[in-house]
């Protein structure tokens, strides 16, 4: 069992490496993608700096906490799209019957598919995330905790995308649901949770778990609470397990295709 897990991780890392090598064939484009993503992320912060110059404290957050929130949002987004890029177009892969080559390999199908490509611009998000983390508080504990939340949050994002995309096994237009779900999570992740009330807030801790991806982690990084840290870990684990269950349930309904496909 342990060997199988180790071999699976080895393959996933090897695939990520080869996908990265492919992206780096054009070095200029590769670096431009990263730099422009950092600039793109930074441009949003300007709006917040202006807002905070008018009013101090929005939704219970000070400016540094907003920077941290953006750091976490960019970090989880970047981590999920760099290591698990194909989780975000899984619907298209299922609909077009592109799972065949993974199904004939003796590896975990879901992991093999979602790790089979990388997004280079996501590296820009990750770099940006750490710049924000350092601005917030430059300490080893802080950076370690921040990294932990990027991983748990990224994995929750990936899981949500896998769960929603797996609906494609049952009906065709599930790609729109997956796209909407993930983009809603990403959008809400950049606003202080204090501005949301009532039912929307419940949504953030259930169907669209932005709370566990961003809000609770911001709280823990501001004031450490072990029980919340454990809660985030357990919730991440829950969504990961759910993603595997839904995907493998759906896989029984996979219908493949005879399209001409090349691995690019």
């Amino acid at each position, binding site marked *: 069992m342990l060997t199988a897990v180790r071999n699976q991780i080895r393959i996933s890392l*090897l695939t990520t490496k*080869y996908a990265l090598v492919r992206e780096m064939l054009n070095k200029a484009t590769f670096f431009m993608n990263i730099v422009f993503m950092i600039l793109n992320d930074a441009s949003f912060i300007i709006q917040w700096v202006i807002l905070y110059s008018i009013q101090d404290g929005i939704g219970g957050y000070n400016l540094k906490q907003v920077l941290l929130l953006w750091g976490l949002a960019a970090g989880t987004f970047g981590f999920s799209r760099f290591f698990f890029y194909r989780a975000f177009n899984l619907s298209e892969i299922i609909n077009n019957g592109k*799972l*065949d080559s993974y199904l*004939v390999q*003796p590896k975990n199908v879901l992991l093999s598919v979602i790790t089979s490509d990388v997004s280079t611009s996501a590296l820009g998000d990750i770099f940006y995330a750490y710049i924000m983390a350092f601005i917030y508080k430059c300490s080893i504990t802080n950076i370690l905790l921040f990294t932990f939340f990027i991983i748990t949050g990224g994995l929750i994002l990936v899981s949500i995308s896998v769960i929603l995309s797996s609906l494609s096994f049952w009906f065709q237009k599930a790609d729109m649901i997956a796209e909407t779900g993930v983009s809603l999570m990403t959008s809400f992740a950049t606003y202080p949770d204090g501005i949301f009330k009532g039912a929307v807030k419940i949504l953030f801790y259930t169907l669209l778990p932005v709370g566990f991806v961003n809000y609770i982690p911001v709280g823990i990084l501001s004031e450490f609470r072990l029980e919340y840290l454990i809660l985030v870990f357990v919730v991440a684990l829950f969504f990961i397990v759910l993603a595997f269950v839904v995907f493998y349930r759906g896989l029984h309904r996979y219908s*493949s295709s005879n399209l001409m496909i090349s691995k690019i």
Partner: protein
Amino acid sequence: MKAVRNIDFSVEKGEMVAFIGPNGAGKSTTIKMMTGILYPTKGSINVLGFDPTKNRRKLAYEIGTVFGQKEQLWTHLTPYDNFKFFGAIYDIPDYAVEKKIEELKELFELGDFINIPVRNLSLGQRIRCEIVASLIHEPKILFLDEPTIGLDPVVKENIRSLIKRMNKEYKTTVFLTSHDVGDIEKLCSRVIIINNGQVVLDDSMENLKYHYLNKKIVEAKMREKVNLEDEDGITILKDKGYNLKIEVDTEKRTVADALKLLNPDNIIDINISNVPLEDIISSIYRKGDKS
């Protein structure tokens, strides 16, 4: 919609079986069920002692697949790096992969291009690499789905002889689907024909030819026009005055009878041939459609 119904067959170790049928007959669906890609709604499949629906991963270690229309290789990597990657997928230790690559490099004559990125290779070279990639883990069965699609005749011939050599060397069972009669005729000793999701013929290549080759095609160039009409055992396929093409059913009439009808003194040139295997297969497909 049911793609296949009541398909039942077994394959012996080391056999080279052609699994053929017209488009939409259910070939790919059957192969995909046998390799664990698709789940059948009913029935049972046993491949090398494994149920593909329950033991997909275990089965994957024992089978290799080449889908001519779907590439498995990373195009920016060299064949060598791809083979190493496939070795890792099948958990083969590095030294064993190296040894296997060396062996297959010789067998499939990859020496000239093993270190050139796959995207720069010709289609024929790529297909050879695809086959080698699927053999890295020494599979007991190789599923080949249209392995020579899009290749020129010379390359096709080359691929066929390499597959034959591989079968001889490793005793790998080959399960082939192809629309190319040359692939079937030159590689396989047994043919399973499927149509409308059902097996319509399961026989040895020898028997197929023996039973269906009871017709001869006679093409003759005549000195004078001959007025010939269809009669028992003789069918006029083409009559262009001086050029005739007739089909003789040798169970009813001999070829000599047919020649007598033409008058041997009137014949300038003659060609007597078997019905092409392609036509035999097409007629079996058509029979399947009618039934």
